[in-house]
């Protein structure tokens, strides 16, 4: 019938598999680097997390090699609430960063496509904060939101905040700080995805009876998903372990402590190395769980 004459339908999309010794040799520096900087510390961390205090010659910060699984039980029961809080803050910061970054990335990657100069300038503006230490930037926010600072005065004059209100040290500020500091990590991967978006596909969508909203969710979003996935991971993973924003020296208080702050305290102040190591490993495992669920849901493992 109609297309019988075309026949064949031979499609050769199998990627040729090339194996060569040269490729393996080229991999060597990477393997050595990973072994030295990832595997070795990881092994050391696991060993430390299982150490036990030296009860014979007791001294603070002195531990013996052991297999003390109690360390894990101990930190999990004692700091469980803080771990949960870390994930909560981080998840909220990730969502806010996504909500702010997606329109931003769309504007730069699609709307400004016709104006390369403006596009380049807008990109520089996204990256510009990196030119300044994020510690200084976070401290600047602390000053801006300080009790005697302009924002509090303004909100008090509008009677939105009471006379003794604070912003610094509240969960809102910690989430704000996390969101602010990680926005570029969300915006840039999404921009990269949207910048390649073929606008003719959007025209095809509208030609096929999809209204602009439907086209956005059925064409634009799925095609920019790789960027959204990378951005989400780049924000969520480091934000969960972040200990700067939540620290009382910056935007947080003791009530907003995240797991990073606890790891830092148990290590530097309490010199409780096994506990901080155990917490680090718990954090790592707990991050892996939602990340793998997320990747399975978005089916983009091949992008990583």
């Amino acid at each position: 019938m109609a297309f019988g004459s075309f026949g064949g339908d031979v499609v050769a999309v199998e990627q040729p598999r090339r194996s060569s010794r040269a490729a393996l040799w080229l991999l060597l520096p990477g393997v050595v680097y990973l072994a030295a900087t990832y595997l070795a510390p990881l092994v050391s961390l696991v060993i430390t997390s299982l150490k036990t205090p030296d009860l014979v010659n007791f001294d603070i910060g002195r531990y013996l090699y052991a297999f003390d699984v109690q360390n894990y039980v101990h930190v999990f029961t004692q700091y469980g609430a803080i771990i949960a809080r870390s994930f909560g803050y981080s998840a909220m910061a990730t969502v806010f960063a996504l909500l702010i970054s997606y329109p931003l990335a769309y504007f730069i990657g699609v709307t400004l496509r016709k104006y390369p100069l403006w596009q380049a300038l807008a990109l520089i503006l996204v990256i510009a904060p990196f030119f300044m230490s994020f510690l200084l930037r976070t401290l600047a926010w602390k000053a801006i939101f300080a009790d005697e600072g302009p924002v509090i005065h303004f909100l008090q004059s509008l009677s939105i905040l009471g006379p003794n209100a604070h912003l610094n040290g509240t969960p809102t500020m910690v989430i704000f700080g996390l969101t602010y500091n990680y926005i570029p990590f969300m915006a840039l991967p999404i921009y990269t995805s949207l910048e390649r978006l073929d606008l003719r596909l959007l025209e095809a969508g509208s030609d096929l009876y999809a209204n602009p909203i439907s086209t956005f969710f059925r064409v634009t979003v799925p095609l920019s998903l790789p960027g959204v996935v990378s951005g989400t991971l780049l924000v969520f993973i480091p934000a969960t372990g972040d200990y700067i924003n939540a620290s009382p020296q910056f935007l947080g208080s003791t009530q907003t402590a995240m797991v990073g702050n606890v790891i830092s305290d148990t290590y530097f102040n309490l010199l409780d190395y096994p506990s901080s190591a155990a917490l680090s490993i718990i954090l790592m495992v707990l991050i892996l769980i939602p990340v793998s669920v997320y990747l399975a849901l978005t089916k983009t493992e091949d992008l990583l």
Partner: protein
Amino acid sequence: MAGAFDDSGADLELVGITKRFPGFTAIENLNLTIPAGSFFALLGPSGCGKTTTLRLVAGLETPTAGRILIGGKDVTDSPPHQRPVNTVFQSYALFPHMTVLRNVAFGLSRRGIQDALGRAHEALRLVELDHLAGRRPSQLSGGQQQRVALARAIVNRPALLLLDEPLGALDLKLRRQMQLELKTIQDEVGLTFLHVTHDQEEAMTMADTVAVMNKGRIEQMGAPEELYELPKTSFVANFLGQSNLFTGQVVSSSALSIVVSAAGTTLEVPRERAERHAGTVTIGVRPEKLTLLVEKPAPAAGTNVLGPGIVSDVSFSGVSTQYLVEVPGAGTITVFAQNMVFGPVVNRGSEVWVSWAVGHGFGLGDDQEAELRFTPDDDTQSIATQRRAALEAELEA
């Protein structure tokens, strides 16, 4: 909304359409009516405004002035997703993140039509790709993608199907087959097809009506044979096939014909085949209508004769042979001769006369332009001629 879609196609009417882009006018006061169920081709060189016309109909561009009516309903201000129109894009624009099946079902699902997937399977069977329904577009060949794009459009049964050079990316053989298939599908489903192309052969083999477009306006419109047999402007005469054109003063005219003094002699053209009957006119004749003669023919009524001239080039192209004849005062004349005998009938350098029946000539409505607005250089014959000229120039240098 579903009521806007029917199985018989709908009239398309463009009324006084003008489209200006910053810096240039793409379409100037275009009026066009395409009757329901026809296969209409807009033919023109790149940049003539044909794709813009298509995008205006699809709703992807907004006209600067004028109205667009589909089935009598004004859709000028409707967004593309509300128009009963589907497009087969030049780039196919298949959604890379969806399977072939989902691509085809996309339009039906958006309109909330029952059994979208079942009908998508049906459309894929029509283009004989149902066995690849689960693949991604990137796993298909160019020809297969083209068929998916076609299925994705016709599954919606649009009143009007727009085709934007859909065969441009295909090789010659596949292209021929697709042309026939498109025509078959049009006969089967009875939609109105609006096809945009720069390929004159494609337009002529597929369309019922061809409109030749140039510089944002339609030069001539009609059935392919009519356009070929009786071009009315020098652009059409040269864009649609090749023509030998001569310009001169009308020296006498009768009820049946006009006689033009041109090319150092007088040439007769039937009155009803000429657009203008007085003053300076341009007349022409198609190369295959010419006969080469090696001896000066006796003057005969109903025949035009030019010559003597010298054959400057002979190129053999299988079915026919193209001769270029230099006739003093008439310039270079192209002659196509069927290869009825082995080898060329005359050789390079031969002295020949060229004759044709008066009834085969035509008179144009405009003056022959010194410089063609668009040189038709995309057919194999003229490419061969050019290549040969270039090689000869190289050897001589």
